């Protein structure tokens, strides 16, 4: 249920991280989700897919990995940047 809110928080974090990279396109965002985090990985993937539809983040892949314990962390953002 709250995976929609979690997906939104991930997208907000991506938008923040993109600021120092004008012209770049976010390709992949990796998160780790632990079994005790209270977040369902499939549901998170579903919600994320739903909220990026029709936005500039439509092509952004969410990479959900299994984390330890109650981990719910952003680990890596992959960008495509124009050649300088």
């Amino acid at each position: 249920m709250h995976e929609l809110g979690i997906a939104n928080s991930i997208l907000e974090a991506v938008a923040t991280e993109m600021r120092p990279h004008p012209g770049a396109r976010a390709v992949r965002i990796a998160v780790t989700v632990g079994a005790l985090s209270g977040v369902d990985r499939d549901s998170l993937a579903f919600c994320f897919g739903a909220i990026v539809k029709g936005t500039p983040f439509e092509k952004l892949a969410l990479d959900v990995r299994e984390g330890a314990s109650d981990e719910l962390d952003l680990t890596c953002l992959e960008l495509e940047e124009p050649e300088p």
Partner: protein
Amino acid sequence: MSTTKVPLERKVLSENDRLAAELRAAFARHGVHCLNLISSPGSGKTALLERTLAAFDPAKRVAVLTGDIQTDADARRLARFGFPVRQITTAGACHLDARMVATALEGWDLANIDLLFIENVGNLVCPTSYDLGEAAKVVLLSVAEGEEKPLKYPGIFFKSKLMVLTKIDLLPYVPFRLEDAIANARAIQPGIEILQVSNTTGEGLDNWMEWIERRA
């Protein structure tokens, strides 16, 4: 085009955690002991708070924030005891977050509060992820539910300081195996404290009041 990998080593909910840390610091500054009560709908959070408020001396500096998706029914139930109570209506959200708590506290002087109860939205999953700046999470599990719930919803039993088994007056009438429920909670978190209460008969409430006083 070139590919850049930006390493991010932070929580998904870092913005909520930042606000929660501010709340926790404000609570510490003003000597507010805050407890975050979490359970399924209907496990007896409001009933336990009614019993708790009724037992306090009217001079006790206690306040309650109560969260629900709709209605202020709980706030009205709890306001009868004369202590400050505010309803947080989440309008659909299945949990409280730190921003809702911060907003609900506006206008209250924390210096006048020693003990703050936050009754979360009835839900055993979603409130788990959101730190509200509390000193401890307290999870309620009624004997009308299943003793396997700690295994099915491990997150909240992992993060709670205390499990309160409620409705123990119903034990003769339900198939709930108390020992299994306790073993299951301890399998998730060996150090979890456990109390048993009945909000109907009052059994065990003295232990609950003592638990609060010992920590506050």
